[in-house]
């Protein structure tokens, strides 16, 4: 085992341990903070695997933006500070499916790779990755930008209740509401009293 293996093993153990705490803790806020530890350990894993740009993007977007958004959501939904008991549903099927998929995938990958070793390739710096993104992967990159725009617009429309609301009262009095009420009330009366 080389130094890279020892680092990968230690960081992987930290990532799996804190990931287990994310899905097992009873404190909502602590789940978000353990997620920070897990994502940071994964960023360290990426650094050992010579994916420099991905590691820093991971720190910037996941630890910097996604976890902060999740913590905002925890605060905005008035989460209790202490431990809360109603976070979980009784979960033998969840444990069964989770352990089955995780251990099954682990067995498959162990069987595929055994204890082989590979040499680490050239580091994925921003220069090399940018060259790839803007040369070979331009179309997916642009499609992703459109997707980000669509997600932004969707989030705005979802979180503003006044968008789309005024259309309903103007359409209802002319056509929708009155025939339905005329038709429904006598039928309900006749059906209810034999």
């Amino acid at each position, binding site marked *: 085992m080389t130094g890279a293996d020892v680092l990968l093993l230690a960081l992987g153990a930290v990532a799996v341990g804190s990931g287990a705490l994310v899905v097992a803790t009873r404190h*909502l806020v602590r789940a978000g903070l353990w997620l920070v530890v897990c994502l940071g350990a994964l960023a360290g894993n990426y650094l050992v*695997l010579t994916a420099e740009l*991905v590691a820093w993007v991971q720190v910037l977007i996941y630890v910097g*933006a996604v976890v902060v958004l999740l913590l905002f959501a925890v605060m905005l939904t008035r989460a209790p500070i202490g431990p809360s008991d109603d976070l979980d549903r009784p979960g033998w099927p969840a444990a069964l499916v989770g352990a089955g998929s995780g251990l099954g995938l682990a067995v498959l990958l162990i069987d595929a790779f055994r204890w082989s070793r590979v*040499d680490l390739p050239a580091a994925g710096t921003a220069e090399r990755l940018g060259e*790839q993104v803007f040369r070979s992967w331009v179309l997916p990159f642009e499609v992703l930008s459109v997707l980000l725009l669509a997600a932004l617009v969707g989030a705005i429309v979802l979180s503003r209740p006044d968008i789309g609301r005024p259309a309903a009262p103007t359409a209802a009095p002319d056509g929708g509401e009155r025939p339905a009420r005329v038709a429904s009330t006598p039928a309900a009366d006749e059906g209810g009293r034999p």
Partner: protein
Amino acid sequence: MRPVIPYVTAALLFGLGVYGVLRRRNAVLVLMAVELMLNAVNLVLVTADTTVQAVLPHSGQVFALFVIVLAAAEIGVGLAIVLQLYRLRAGVTVDDVPLAEPAPAVTPVERPEGAIR
């Protein structure tokens, strides 16, 4: 570098994510478990970038970047839905979400015949 170590890490993280999605009732915690699964996929992609000799270099890392962008979009829309759910029902418990669409509440507005519209 032994590639089996990060692969097994990713597999275990994915299993933890599946467990969390199925176990948790709070919608925010479900989103956190989804993040665990996405990160496991990212680790597989980055590790495969070192083990697979592809035609295009660094394809796995480029795909990991794309998955990170997708996760950012997903968390934005997901949190908007969660906050809207909280606004409607004063709670983010996934079990309490009604799956069937509720009947439209017709507000009985009595409008006299001679009223000015």
